[in-house]
């Protein structure tokens, strides 16, 4: 069954030629020379005033990276990347450790204002009290400002840029960095280890419920640069944090590389909610330009009854290659993955998740929706596995995709591996099977099977996405209303 008219209109409204964040900010930049070698790695480390163990860590990663080959298994197609044509460090010149917002280049503040991200705390306070959000703004290679730091520190929460964390809290960084995504994990993660420049660091102490939403806003501005950010979130026993990241980039004819690594650690009874609104420049209708988004995101539910949930709304990037995953190590831990990916133009999306059940009584849920239009291709690739000791592991997966037009493609590549007899895995892509009871209830009240299904699926996802509190989650809100009527598995 083809997509309904309403859906087609809604998807067209966010087509690649409608990209709103394609402007360039004119800022004087401090650039590393193009290319990648040990000197560049040392230079990045020196620029950030890192301890020597960190420099060695980076150099080891770089040497390792040189022996690796780019992965070819994803269903994406792009010309070879020349890693020597990229500036691995680009920082606004006037951003020499600003102590307050007044020292930040007004052009950068303007850029964030244009993107709808107010960085001045008083501007944010003007809003409703409980919609306050602490923001870490990352502009090309560096974090320019982090808001509400003092208020957060009163609660014991550390929220700062990665560079600052390396200076102020090296023991915490050293303890956790690279423990979720090892240095040797994959080609892009290893590259990131060698050259990452900034990102956010979050530490929530034992028993603390983070008093406000935390968010990082990533902006690529300078041309010929790559953005390699690194985020590390640690939730100590019994703590809770909700974190949101947003990403945009200017409209350019060249492709730019974004290779991030995100590591989450949840200890006993802790909960991390990680949301992404990814809206990198997707390239034009002919596929020229756009961001290559090669990202490694992984959460480690290390403690008992810990919980990590990934929510992502993906509309940008010319190529997306990311699989936010959960390692369910602690007994009774829970992983969730909710995703809506809309591809247009010539975008290529290969995304999904991994739920690796190691502990007893671990549960996971995957809800993924993909919508392909134009000449784009969208692939859901996911792994659910239960290891031998994962007694009573439970997973429910539902992935739907919808095509608009017959020039695009939608693909599903789920891997379901069970090594434990008591593990119960259910994977389905047919919307008619959500819950017979709910469906029956709705239909009994006069809804057609399709209306009832749409109501249940959308209602379910809406629940999750409506929790995105951000001003820049407008797209997300729009996307939720897109009906998946006519979806295929």
């Amino acid at each position, binding site marked *: 069954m083809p997509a309904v008219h309403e859906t087609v209109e809604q998807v067209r409204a966010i087509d690649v030629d409608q990209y709103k964040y394609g402007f360039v900010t004119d800022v004087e930049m401090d650039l590393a020379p193009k290319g990648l070698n040990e000197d560049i790695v040392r230079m990045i480390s020196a620029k950030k005033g890192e301890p020597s163990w960190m420099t060695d860590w980076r150099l080891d990663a770089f040497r390792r990276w040189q022996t690796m080959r780019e992965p070819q298994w994803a269903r994406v197609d792009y010309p070879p990347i020349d890693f020597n044509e990229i500036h691995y460090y680009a920082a606004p010149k006037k951003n020499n450790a600003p102590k307050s917002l007044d020292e930040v280049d007004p052009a950068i503040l303007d850029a964030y204002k244009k993107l709808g991200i107010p960085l001045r705390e008083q501007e944010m306070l003007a809003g409703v009290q409980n919609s306050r959000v602490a923001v870490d703004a990352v502009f090309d290679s560096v974090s320019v400002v982090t808001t509400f730091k003092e208020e957060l520190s009163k609660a014991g929460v550390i929220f700062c840029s990665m560079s600052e964390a390396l200076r102020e809290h090296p023991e915490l960084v050293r303890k956790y960095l690279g423990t979720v995504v090892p240095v040797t994990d994959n080609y892009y993660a290893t590259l990131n280890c060698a050259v990452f420049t900034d990102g956010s660091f979050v530490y929530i102490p034992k028993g603390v419920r983070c008093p406000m939403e935390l968010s990082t806003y990533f902006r690529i501005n300078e041309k010929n640069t790559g953005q390699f950010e690194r985020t590390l979130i640690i939730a100590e026993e019994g703590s809770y944090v909700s974190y949101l990241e947003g990403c945009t980039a200017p409209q350019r004819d060249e492709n730019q590389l974004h290779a991030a690594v995100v590591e989450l650690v949840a200890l006993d009874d802790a909960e991390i909610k990680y949301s992404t609104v990814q809206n990198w420049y997707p390239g034009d209708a002919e596929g020229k330009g756009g961001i290559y988004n090669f990202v490694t995101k992984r959460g480690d539910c290390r403690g008992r009854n810990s919980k990590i949930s990934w929510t992502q709304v993906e509309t940008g990037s010319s190529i997306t290659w990311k699989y936010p995953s959960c390692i369910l190590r602690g007994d009774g831990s829970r992983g969730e993955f909710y995703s809506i990916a809309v591809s247009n133009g010539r975008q290529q999306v290969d995304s999904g998740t991994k739920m690796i059940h190691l502990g007893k009584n671990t549960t996971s849920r995957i809800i993924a929706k993909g919508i392909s239009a134009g000449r784009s291709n969208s692939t859901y690739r996911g792994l659910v596995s239960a290891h*031998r000791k994962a007694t009573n592991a439970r997973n429910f997966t539902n992935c739907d995709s919808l*095509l608009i037009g017959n020039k695009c493609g939608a693909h599903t*590549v*789920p891997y379901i591996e069970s090594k434990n007899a*008591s*593990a119960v895995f259910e*994977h*389905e892509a047919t919307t008619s099977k959500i819950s017979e009871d709910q469906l029956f209830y709705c239909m009994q009240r006069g809804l057609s099977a399709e209306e009832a299904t749409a109501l249940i699926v959308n209602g379910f996802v809406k629940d999750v996405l409506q929790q995105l509190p951000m001003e820049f989650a407008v797209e997300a809100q729009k996307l939720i209303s897109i009906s998946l009527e006519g979806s295929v598995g």
Partner: protein
Amino acid sequence: MTDVTPIRTAAESAILSRFPQAKASLPGTPAVAALREQAFGSFVETGLPHRRVEKWKYTDLRAMMREAAPLAAAPAAADIAAAEALLAAAPAFDGVALTVVNGRFTPELSDLAALPPGVSVADLGEALGSGHPLVGERMGRAASADDAALALNAAFMTGGVIVTVADAVTVVSPLALRFVTVGDVGAATYPRALLQVGADASLTVIETHLGADGPAHQTNTVVEIFAGDRSSLNHVRVNAAGAATVDVSSLGVVLGAHASANTFNFVVNPAAARHQVFFRFAGEHSTGNISGAAMLKGRRHADSTLFVDHAVPHCTSRETFAHVLDGEATGVFQGMILVRPDAQKTDGKMMSRAVLLDDDAVMNNKPELEIYADDVVCGHGATVGALDEDLLFYLRARGLPKPEAEALMLAAFVGEALEAIAHDGVRETLEGMVDAWLKARA
């Protein structure tokens, strides 16, 4: 991913050195010989499939075939007698018998005189040498993927059968196509079958694979079926090869318009079995059902890998597989439905269900969809779990001992899969095999 330098395993080296010696004695015209060379060339490049080859991710032939068994010789009188004994002891399927022993068509164990009108059978080994028209026109066109198992069979194929059903012929009695491997030591066999079902014709084929439990045979079978417009095909494959056998089989089906084809694969005995199905809709408004069941214990391994190609619009496909896994057994289901850009109104569904009876059993599922048309309905599902505790409790509360309650539930679980078989007699025989398996377990 670091660079991997391929190291030839002992089995690979043996196979590689065997072809130059064997090729002179393998049947075929110069055209067939060229085909063999080409296929062997592609095997030289790929070697045996292993877990880094995506389509063989869960069935690592390189690890399973420590050694390459020598090529089976043409069956002598004693071998034919041994094959006859094996056939007599195995569950019987009604129908006109066509028997292939150690990769060669064996008229002594075939019932050519009973062939119904409109059905003709040729010895594939002879046909390769005599330039039979179907060999040139059809062979390798239904199972045509770039695949090491197909390449090995094409390089080493020794014989088998060609079956032709004329247009508009309804064959009432099934054909019992029997592949038997005999010999006291493990041997490698490469049989092949080519079936052409004419327009408006209908045919039921029961394909069985048998062997003794002792020797570690390595069998690699390719069956290709071309079914014409408005034809009706029912194909059931029963894999009861010996308990030490590594069995690799490929089925290729090309289906015409307004036609229907059902194929069912039942795996019960071999140490390792890989069954790959390449199913292509070549005409509109056709229906394909690809299903199967496997009951495995010990350290057995069964893999069903499907590739369904919706090349034209308005076709319906169903893929349903059930696995019962006990002991340290491993089940694999890899389904793939490809809907090409103009194959609108495609209706495709696949479902894999598995019951794990032991903590050491493993099930790997990969139900894959690749869709390029927007007006289609495609779904896939996969479930893995233990037997339902509540149902088990219900049965035990009514006085059934645990083994009996389990057997009852498992019989129902597999029975649901067997319902895909249209032929009553065949289904009943398979139900008997299921009961025997369950009895042996209890």
